[in-house]
């Protein structure tokens, strides 16, 4: 009887701890031991459904981002990297749901994929954006909407690796920080990648995103960067804030 009481007490304690974890998602997503982690990359093709994103000539940004995600995923899988995507079809996915998918994956890298018309002043380029949240040290009780603040340092390192690979591939890269709801809620090294392809000659108001040569070059550079990120020890367990 006494043993049974102890068992019940023990079960109650476990239940209390489990409910605490449920109330604090950041705690619940504490990573497993380094040896148990695998290298996972989350690809987040932006927009989808009735959210078209930017207009790029004949295509919407949502289609371009999805095509980019499919190409990059195939390259990463071929290199033995596990990939989780936030959408596989033309579906409308909320920003917080995107972050939830990424956070559940315990990813070593999260890329939010976007496309934009090339600047009037510049040629084709890739813009890399980090979250504009101020960096924070403690990740355990961070509010969901600012969860990325604890990962700014790792995200900056990931952006550096991406920048290096793209520059080596001959791609013009600009770096910046931006307020993006999905990225701000991610608990992983996260970078928004915005591809701005070549503007067709004579066209001033829109760019045609169907620049497959440039896109292929960018996707290959991103895949190479993520392979380097893995070899550099970008695993979650080793660099969790």
């Amino acid at each position: 009887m006494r043993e049974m009481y102890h068992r019940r007490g023990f079960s109650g304690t476990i239940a209390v701890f489990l409910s605490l974890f449920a109330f604090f998602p950041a705690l619940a997503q504490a990573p497993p031991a380094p040896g148990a982690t695998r290298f996972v990359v989350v690809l987040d093709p932006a927009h989808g459904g009735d959210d078209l994103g930017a207009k790029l000539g004949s295509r919407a940004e949502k289609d371009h981002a999805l095509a980019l995600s499919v190409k990059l995923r195939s390259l990463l899988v071929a290199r033995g990297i596990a990939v989780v995507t936030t959408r596989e079809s033309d579906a409308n996915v909320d920003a917080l749901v995107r972050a939830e998918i990424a956070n559940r994956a315990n990813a070593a890298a999260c890329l939010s994929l976007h496309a934009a018309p090339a600047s009037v002043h510049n040629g084709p380029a890739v813009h890399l954006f980090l979250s504009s949240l101020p960096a924070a040290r403690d990740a355990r009780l961070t509010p969901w909407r600012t969860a990325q603040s604890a990962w700014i340092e790792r995200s900056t390192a990931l952006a550096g690796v991406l920048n290096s690979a793209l520059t080596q591939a001959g791609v013009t890269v600009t770096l910046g920080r931006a307020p993006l709801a999905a990225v701000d809620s991610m608990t992983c090294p996260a970078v928004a990648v915005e591809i701005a392809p070549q503007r067709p000659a004579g066209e001033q108001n829109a760019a045609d995103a169907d620049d497959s040569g440039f896109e292929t070059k960018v996707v290959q550079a991103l895949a190479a960067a993520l392979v380097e990120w893995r070899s550099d020890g970008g695993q979650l367990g080793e660099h969790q804030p």
Partner: protein
Amino acid sequence: MIPRHQTVLLVILLVASLIMGAVLWNQLRRAHERLLRGEVSVPTQAPLVAPAEQATLMVADDADNSIAPRILTLPLPENPEARARAVLGKLFDLDAAPDSTHPVPGGAGSIAQVFLLPIAGARGKTSAASPQLAVVNLTGAFVAGHPSGIETETLTVRSICATLNANLPRVTEVRFLVDGQPHATLAGHADLTRTYLAAQTAATEGTQP
């Protein structure tokens, strides 16, 4: 058969009524003319002309993803909220100009209102120095016409926050509404639901990794 004297009386009364009606109509017309002649058509109170002052506008540039100060002399009202609206209106006019470095259609009419509110938790400071939250209410037309893209949307948000902070130093935080309602993003990317730190916007969001 109506007696003759009654017929004569009826005719006299009818004629008298017509004469009285004509006289009244004439007097009414004259009174109206007198009223119009006596009315002063100039405004009873001259509109207040705000004195011209220097304002610092943080103008965005798409070419290098930067914002740079531009000092202009503008008539700025005394009221801080009207002042904030005036500087943002001028900033939006610059963006809407044909030679803009950050082309965004709309102009000054894109700012519906700017509200300045004391920040909760900053009660210890004196009212003259207490930090303020600026709530910028944008029009739906401006948001609908804003070009979509992370870079261009971020530049717009940064330039608004930095311009407010440059001209109203007490404004330390900025929030956005669209047609009086919370709105998820500016044009699909820049988050409009969060609170922006005005002082840090220009300094941190442009830093490079």
